[in-house]
């Protein structure tokens, strides 16, 4: 099985879907000749031409809005927002429009658009090239938000997003792009949107997380294993709407739950995960539901000292896991 990086899996999924279905096209800033500022669309302009890999004017509300129009018509647009931080000008199109098109038309119209954006910190991106923006959208019925953690998941979930009949926000961790490598099958597989995935079976503590947090937790779990602590790790994969059954099952499995996100703590995805647990299996718990997250300050300063202070990392995750195990 070929080994590829997280970003290569993005490109591969895009290429395969564009080959499979003529209606699939890409639009965004610098996605054409340049192949994207992160090179996620590298080679696609040469392969599919400038009509299917469209360099748009610098205007995110139009990228989303034009994509939405094309999707209503029956195309399969994949819009790239250059950095997740720059999705903000498109919020009205995404929340007021994409999310509500099926519902407001009583199922007459729909909007199968995929919006990809790199998110996340730890890359000297400072306040506007580091943010986690999922919480802004994670209260909007009609949307789905996918945040994959491995190259394998990237390919299967991005293909699923493109084929989905409804709008999907697909957030890729930009630090994972070249950091993470893994086996990715050549065949045409899709993974289910809306389902979480157990990334490691364990019996002492449960860690629920997504994106880069999954790797930090897996790394920490290896170390803790040596100390005799067995960690169960659930990767949410889809952070909205959440896979409630999987969350409840994972929490019940060990009775001790740590929730990890790189986002600011207050009002993050993990708040909802916590609420689901204490609504459904409070009496199965042996410890308070702990959250490890960024502090509640704008994410995140540029200077390396402060950036490091802000970010979660394997050491912080390991410590939180050990503390919980020892509770």
């Amino acid at each position, binding site marked *: 099985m070929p080994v590829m990086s997280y970003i290569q899996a993005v490109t591969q999924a895009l290429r395969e879907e564009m080959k499979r279905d003529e209606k699939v096209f890409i639009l965004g800033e610098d996605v054409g000749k340049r192949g994207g500022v992160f090179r996620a669309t590298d080679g696609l302009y040469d392969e599919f031409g400038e009509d299917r890999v469209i360099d748009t004017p610098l205007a995110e509300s139009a990228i989303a809005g034009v994509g939405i129009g094309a999707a209503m018509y029956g195309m399969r647009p994949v819009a790239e927002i250059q950095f997740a931080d720059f999705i903000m000008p498109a919020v009205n199109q995404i929340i*007021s*429009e994409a999310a509500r098109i099926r519902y407001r038309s009583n199922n007459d119209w729909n909007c199968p658009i995929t919006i990809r954006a790199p998110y996340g910190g730890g890359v000297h991106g400072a306040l506007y090239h580091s943010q986690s923006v999922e919480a802004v959208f994670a209260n909007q019925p*009609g949307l789905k938000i996918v945040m994959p953690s491995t190259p394998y998941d990237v390919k299967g979930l991005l293909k699923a997003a493109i084929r989905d009949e409804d709008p999907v926000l697909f957030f890729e961790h930009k630090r994972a792009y070249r950091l993470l490598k893994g086996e990715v099958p050549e065949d045409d597989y899709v993974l289910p949107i809306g389902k979480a995935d157990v990334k490691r079976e364990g019996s002492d503590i449960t860690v629920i997380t997504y994106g880069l947090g999954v790797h930090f937790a897996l790394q920490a779990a290896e170390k803790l294993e040596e100390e005799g602590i067995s960690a169960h790790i659930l990767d949410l994969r889809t952070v909205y709407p959440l896979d409630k059954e999987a969350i409840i099952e994972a929490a019940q499995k060990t009775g001790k739950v740590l929730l990890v996100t790189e986002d600011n703590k207050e009002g993050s995805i993990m708040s909802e995960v916590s609420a689901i647990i204490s609504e459904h299996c409070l009496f199965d718990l042996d410890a308070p539901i702990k959250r490890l997250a960024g502090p509640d300050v704008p994410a995140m300063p540029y200077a390396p000292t402060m950036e490091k202070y802000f970010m979660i990392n394997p050491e912080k995750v390991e410590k939180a896991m050990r503390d919980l195990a020892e509770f």
Partner: protein
Amino acid sequence: MAKKRHEALGLSDEQVLDMFRTMLLARKIDERMWLLNRAGKIPFVISCQGQEAAQVGAAYALDREKDYVAPYYRDMGVVLAFGMTAKDLMLSGFAKKEDPNSGGRQMPGHFGQKKNRILTGSSPVTTQVPHAVGVALAAKMEKKDFVTFVTLGEGSSNQGDFHEGLNFAGVHKLPVITMVENNKYAISVPIKKQLACEKVSDRAIGYGMPGYTVDGNDPLAVYEVVKEARERAVKGEGPTLIETVSYRLTPHSSDDDDRTYREREEVEEAKKKDSIITFAQYLKDNGVLTEEKEKELHKEIDKLVNEATDYAENAPYADPEDALKHVYAE
């Protein structure tokens, strides 16, 4: 003898009569909705009154079998011309389950009907502009010969989505016609507090497209300019911006009281140019309409509106739990 204006545009007597009929139908549905609102039977109305000529003139210049429209909330004239019926509109007014626009989920004026290629609309103004551009992009990509037609108010032309959408259309030379229905007010705010340019169409040059300002009370003038815009669009010559100037004859909506911000004289003055009167006069002057025919028409339309009202009033609401349906594909 000089040709009549409509003949010079290639319109037959039947066609202009049909246009008038659609304008009158829009007006009469709208008037009925106000009555129903004032009688406490429907919670909300937002009117087309004063803009029927622009709407119907434009719609008849399009290909109503293949073009896509992204109408805004006042465009009853457009959606009627594109195949929506009085009954459909009344079902929407009464928020009934059978309403084809939204199954009673949206307020009236939030049009949408896939079979007639009417894109579903929302309340936040101007979001439909990029949508129409996106459908036009699809037309270009798929090498189809339809155009898209999108409308909005002059106040709404100040939203960022207007700028971003039109610029996108200009750069990619897309077959989309944007028509700003300038009715001089955005709720209470007069045009001089909305725009500093002389004409909304002054904005066209900034997007590399032609811009026109026409009399929105004259359906033939609007027909002509939209027709030409459509021809350019299908020839690959790109988008057009059109401004139609008329006047909002009613308050903004049934929730508004326009006496707090505009003089009655101004409204009365505008009513003299009401296209329902002036276009009828044109048709009479040109032997297309007679007093008798006009009466018949009124009678026929009143009947239609009555039937639509009765049907819609007696139609069932969606079940409470229907609220849970269609958030995602099932």
